[in-house]
């Protein structure tokens, strides 16, 4: 039973992390190739705080805040750079994060932080907390999508200049998307740190950023439930199939390439097409 709980906890944290990126990239159209840096910011914040005997539940909002603050500055950068340049900037942030963490003894350097204390719940209780937070954010995302904010996000993703001409303050919306998306990644990081009880710089590198982007794109950018399904599937595949674990980056990149080539709208688009075809035939 412990194995299943571990599996489900991993899935749940991955979904939360992917939904955070989906908020920025899927909803608002702002590409991020360094989202693992925000997962790491949350993880390190929470781990260091619990090491200092601060209760885990207090570290959750603190992790969200530190990752959100970093996200705010990246949001400011997104006002200056767009598209490919934003991708490179966010990728740089990812490398910068790993570089800083690796060099500082305060963060445990190369060896990372081990022996992170228990969150104070049973394994099952921790799983329930992860599921509850993930569901909460999934419903929040769905509500946003149906609100006027969702319309504005879609418009910004479509054409930022036209959105401005419609009298909308694009800068505020983009910063909001970055702050929310990165805060959620921070919470996912705090959960991650207390799930594995060990974190190191390599856990938040470029591979992790590409993996989460693959989850979002393979699911279907902007679709909450398709991204959740994709994140759940792709997070446990390496644990179930050894080959996927050994060649994780190759496997994810291959899937990403295939999806962009054959169905840029991801799994959500495939399901939509199948539904339409069924309706036509019946």
């Amino acid at each position, binding site marked *: 039973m412990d194995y299943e709980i571990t599996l489900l906890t991993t899935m749940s944290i991955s979904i939360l992390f992917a939904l955070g990126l989906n908020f920025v990239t899927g909803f608002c159209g702002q590409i991020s190739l360094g989202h693992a840096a925000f997962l790491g910011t949350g993880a390190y914040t929470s781990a260091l705080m619990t090491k200092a005997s601060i209760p885990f539940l207090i570290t959750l909002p603190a992790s969200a805040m530190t990752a959100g603050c970093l996200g705010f500055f990246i949001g400011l950068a997104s006002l200056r750079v767009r598209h490919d340049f934003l991708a490179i900037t966010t990728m740089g942030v990812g490398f910068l994060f790993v570089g800083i963490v690796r060099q500082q003894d305060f963060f445990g350097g190369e060896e990372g932080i081990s022996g992170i204390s228990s969150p104070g719940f049973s394994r099952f209780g921790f799983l329930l907390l992860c599921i509850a937070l993930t569901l909460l954010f999934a419903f929040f995302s769905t509500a946003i999508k149906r609100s*006027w904010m969702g*319309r504005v996000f879609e418009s910004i993703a479509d054409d930022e200049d*036209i959105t401005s001409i419609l009298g909308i303050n694009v800068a505020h919306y983009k910063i909001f998307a970055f702050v929310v998306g990165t805060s959620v990644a921070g919470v996912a990081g705090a959960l991650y740190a207390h799930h594995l009880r060990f974190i190191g710089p390599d856990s938040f590198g470029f591979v992790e950023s590409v993996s989460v982007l693959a989850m979002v794109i393979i699911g279907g950018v902007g679709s909450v439930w398709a991204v959740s399904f994709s994140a759940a599937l792709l997070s446990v595949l390496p644990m179930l199939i050894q080959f996927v674990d050994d060649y994780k980056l190759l496997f994810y990149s291959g899937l990403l390439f295939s999806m962009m080539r054959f169905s840029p709208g991801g799994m959500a688009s495939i399901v939509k097409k199948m539904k339409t075809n069924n309706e036509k035939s019946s």
Partner: protein
Amino acid sequence: MKSLLEIKNVTVRFGGVTAVDGVSLSLGKGELIGFIGPNGAGKTTLMRVITGMVKPNEGEVILEGKDLSRLPIHERVSSGLSLAQQIVRPLVSFHALDNVILACGKKKTENVLSSLFHKDTSEESEKAKDLLTQVGLADSFYNFPETMPLGHLKRLELARALALDPKLLLLDEPLAGLNQLEARKLSDLIVTLNQKGQSILLIEHNLKEVIRICKKIYVQDNGRFLAFGETAEVMSNIEVQNAYLGKNKNA
């Protein structure tokens, strides 16, 4: 007539090229002014200065006494400007109705938190349907831009600009690319809007239609002011004729 828009001594330089050179223009409330000039006259650049898409090296843009010169695009739009662009740019992932609904929801989208707590679109949807009907797109509510012909996209652009309830509507070559019949229909629509009290600054190359619908014309050439006044008077101006037709050596 009370002035709605005042452009004072605007100069725009792109490197060594002066696109707009010390231009001033005034438009009164309820006026429809045709803004013409040969290619490269700096018409679109001046329009972009008004909306804030281009920052001038010198000069001021004043709307109803409010200096817009330092405001970003969205604040100028909130102050009462609205633009229908020469090259139509609809939001391609939205159908025609949703394109206009988004513009109708200005009050709900001007603040991030306000947009988070509003979901209902019924009021905006009704207004958007009225506007699309008004511009002749009653049958195209749910058509996506990629399936619409240019004439319809021009009308959609106009409906979206009107949805912002502008004090001043800026139209950048709305007739470009339209056939004679479509151009005449759209021109008639512009006149109807003006008759309802809408102030309009119309940049247009289609001289025939501009002369037909505008009582006043402003002419610019090589970035400089050339003429302004009653249409017949301006069109009989020899300098305007020279700018359009080339200099008459026998004159």
